[in-house]
């Protein structure tokens, strides 16, 4: 013991060169990981910078009126982002309206109702489906869903709402099959497994004592979900839904096939439209001229800013849930 104790004060009796080398290696490794972490920041900053620089000529030419101009005329180099922005927002919001209740319903089924034997298989199936590339949803929508909608559902809607004010213009013909509504439906199907997977994970964080206490007081399953599970997980569910919204806003391939690529804002949901991502995917490689490419890049910049805000809000909500879960355990 005495030997070890004294060695802490007097010069060490072991190989100092080797220790110094190990320390230097440690410093180098530390610096290396830090440089790589800095690289992620650099990547982000250069992404923003390159979009801003790329969009600069278009910004100079059109200013802020780019945001609310509906024209898109490559020949006269007259560009406005109103139609793609409208299409992006409407398809994403419609998709959320369809997918969020159903996704939460599936999550409720999986956590509260499902027989134990089926719980894992269905859960795994949902998670696997969340990983299927969006182009698969796109070609399915293009070859299968759009013709079905064109022949059955769209004529039925158009006929049904004919003569009803407001709804009549919302579901006005002709039934193309492709268009805003079809794109929203495909988006909804695509983000459904994503919402389900996140919501289920969030539901599972509810401590069972809370649920058992409610059941013990005689609450029904639905009352437990509505008054215990949902309030406890509110910020997580909202955060998950916003992550899904971020995905829907930026989704390219699932939408590009079925949106119809028309630069006009029409009140009818069945009419063709375009979204920011579809416009870029369809036209970027064919864009020529001084302002065409910058206009498309400015569209991309707008998309990035919007998704950034949505994703940052989602991070914030999920972070809050994490803080609380951490505090309780």
């Amino acid at each position, binding site marked *: 013991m005495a030997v070890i104790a004294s060695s802490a004060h007097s010069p060490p009796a072991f190989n100092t060169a080797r220790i110094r080398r*190990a*320390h230097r*290696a*440690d410093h180098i*490794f*530390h610096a290396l*990981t*830090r440089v*790589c*972490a*800095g690289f*992620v*920041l650099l990547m*982000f900053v250069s*992404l923003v910078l390159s*979009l801003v620089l790329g969009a600069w000529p278009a910004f100079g030419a059109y200013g802020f009126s780019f945001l609310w101009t509906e024209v898109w005329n490559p020949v006269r180099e007259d560009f406005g982002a109103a139609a793609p922005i409208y299409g992006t927002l409407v398809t994403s919001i419609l998709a959320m309206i369809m997918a969020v209740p*159903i996704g939460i*319903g*599936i999550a409720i*089924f999986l956590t*509260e*109702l499902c027989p134990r034997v089926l719980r894992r298989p*269905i859960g795994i*199936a949902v*998670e696997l*489906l969340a*990983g*299927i*590339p*969006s182009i*698969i*949803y*796109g*070609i*399915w929508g293009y*070859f299968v869903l759009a013709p079905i909608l064109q022949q059955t559902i769209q004529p039925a809607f158009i006929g049904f709402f004919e003569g009803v004010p407001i709804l009549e213009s919302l579901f006005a013909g002709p039934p193309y099959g492709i268009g805003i509504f079809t794109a929203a439906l495909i988006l909804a*199907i695509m983000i*459904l497994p994503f919402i*389900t997977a996140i919501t289920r994970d969030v539901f599972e964080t509810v401590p069972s004592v809370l649920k058992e206490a409610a059941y013990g007081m005689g609450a*029904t399953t*639905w*009352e437990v*979900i509505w008054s215990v599970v949902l309030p406890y997980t509110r910020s997580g569910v909202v955060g998950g839904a916003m992550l899904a919204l971020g*995905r829907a806003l*930026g989704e*390219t*391939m699932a939408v590009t*096939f079925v949106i119809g690529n028309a630069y006009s804002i029409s009140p009818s949901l069945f009419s063709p439209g375009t979204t920011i*991502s579809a416009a*870029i*995917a369809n036209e*970027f490689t064919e864009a020529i001229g001084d302002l065409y490419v910058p206009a498309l*890049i400015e569209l*991309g910049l707008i*998309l990035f800013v919007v*998704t*950034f805000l949505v*994703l*940052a809000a989602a*991070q914030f909500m999920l972070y809050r849930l994490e803080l609380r879960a951490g505090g309780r355990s």
Partner: protein
Amino acid sequence: MNPIYAKRRRRNNMFLGLSVIATLFGLGWLAMILGTLLYEGFSGLDLAIFTQSTPPPGLQGGLLNAIVGSLIMTSLAVLAGTPIGILVGTYLAEYGRYTRLAFVVRFVNDILLSAPSIVIGLFIYELIVVNMGHFSAWAGAAALTVIVIPVVVRTTENMLVLIPNSLREAAAALGATRAHVIRQVTWRAARAGIITGVLLAIARISGETAPLLFTSLSNQFWSADLNAPMASLPVVIFHMALSPYDDWHRLAWSGALLITMAVLLLSIIARVLGSSTQSERS
């Protein structure tokens, strides 16, 4: 029965019934998609897909150049992205867990993780394609790398944070430096989890289309030149599906089936690996 009880029971049955209907409805769509994909994909699948390059319309052909192009660009992206991603994840979980830099990097990384992939395509276009003056497989691989890094960072950090501190302390008590502890102890303990992250990243990029559209472009012919445009499965599927030719549509479905199979297989392997480490730990 007391009317209040009856009402509560009715509400309960109604909402639970709705959730069952939602499940059937949601899973029904997804089953339809997979069903169509399997049917259309297998009916067009033959040996020529793997031995011949993409044909002009009307002629026999396959997807060989697209498959090889996808493999090349995916491998390059994984080779470049994995080491960086693991080192960043290591910084976030080990050296800089509570630093301000780590906080910012974590936030930025999560944004990049879900940023629209087409925007990443625009970024690489501005950064590489414009500067090189032409489309190339390098640019495509770079775009995919930007997608790989955040995925690997997130899973690596999550896995390293799970390693109990007692392991690190035990190694440090033996006189190991932090670099030693990380490389000899925590990386080893988290190995399966980190590999899971890499597999998930591969699954993620093997179906990515949008970032390749205007970086690697596409190529109708066989090409292994990294300085030239290169075909990739997703982009070829995109062009073929939108073409008016029936035989191209069949090839597109077969390609879609191949991608889906690859993605599902990777996710299943990742899942098996992930669950085996979890059961080891508990």
